[in-house]
């Protein structure tokens, strides 16, 4: 498992080039993010009163293969801990945390703090994230890395396509390792990403759709 994750990590890093990693929009903006896949479904909506903070609500459903799903509903906070504005790049460290209630296979108080580092240029992108995902009897802590590249440089009001590769390891989950190559389209205030999780494993292969909209 560690070997598989290492390989996926190296693949992601070696493909370094990809997208827009922000977990919140700009000052006085709203952001809607959704993930729809066989194993994880998530909807998050937040409002950013400043570039440093955003507050919102989220619903996340974890659906391990062959088991009952757990749905966590809660409120969340996103904070920009540090930003580096470089001549042709940007790097950020983010904190995100949510608290709420779990229902389904696991019941009770749920919490999920996470830390994310991302680095991007107009052509390259890299992200590393650690997330705790806990509820009574549940520990689905996860670690993820993403890397990607844009096929070409685009103007701000043009659609820019990216190739993104994500590797995600989740504790006590089936499948515990999810590798998802995806095509991402970014325009002024939205992105749409279509990927396939574990494409080379017939029994685990599943489509995944991510959407993000900021206004």
């Amino acid at each position, binding site marked *: 498992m560690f070997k598989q994750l290492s390989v996926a990590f190296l693949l992601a890093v070696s493909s370094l080039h990809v997208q*827009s990693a922000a977990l919140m*929009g*700009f*000052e006085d903006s709203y952001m809607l993010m959704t993930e729809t896949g066989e194993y994880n479904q998530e909807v998050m909506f937040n409002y950013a009163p400043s570039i440093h903070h955003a507050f919102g609500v989220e619903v996340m459903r974890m659906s391990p293969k062959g088991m009952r799903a757990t749905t966590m509903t809660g409120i969340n906070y996103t904070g920009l801990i540090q930003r580096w504005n470089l001549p042709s790049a940007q790097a950020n460290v983010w904190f995100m945390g949510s608290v709420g209630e779990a229902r389904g296979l696991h019941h009770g108080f749920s919490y999920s703090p996470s830390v994310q580092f991302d680095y991007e240029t*107009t052509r390259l992108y890299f992200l590393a994230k650690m997330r705790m995902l806990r509820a009574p009897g549940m520990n689905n802590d996860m670690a993820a890395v993403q890397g990607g590249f844009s096929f070409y440089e685009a*103007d*701000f009001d043009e659609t820019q396509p990216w190739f993104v590769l994500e590797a995600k390891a989740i504790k006590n989950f089936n499948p515990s390792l999810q590798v998802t190559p995806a095509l991402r389209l970014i*325009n*002024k205030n939205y992105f749409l990403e279509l990927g396939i999780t574990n494409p080379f494993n017939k029994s685990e292969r599943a489509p995944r759709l991510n959407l993000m909209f900021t206004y």
Partner: protein
Amino acid sequence: MKNILIILCCLLASPIVSAATSIKAEVNGMVCAFCAKGIEKKLNAMPEGQGAFVDLKRRIVVLELKPQQNVSLDAFTQVIKEAGYAVDKVENVEQSIAEIKANIKASMKGQ
């Protein structure tokens, strides 16, 4: 002739300030569409401006000013900083956004 010279001297001595048509900045950290959107929104909210232009590839941001309006370079820099980015270079330019876009287009053709 003497009168003309006097008028000319008066004109030269008077504090005529020609307001810049636009303010142009090179911005660090502006790499994504969402970044650009945030900066554009901030600039469009400035009452002195009549249009904003963001060029991600060249990492430039332009605010075209309304006639008789001016914004100090420091104030403009502050707006970009508040949007979350760093200004590398900022200047007044006697060009409209349309002219700047035309120059960019021309330079691309020349490449």
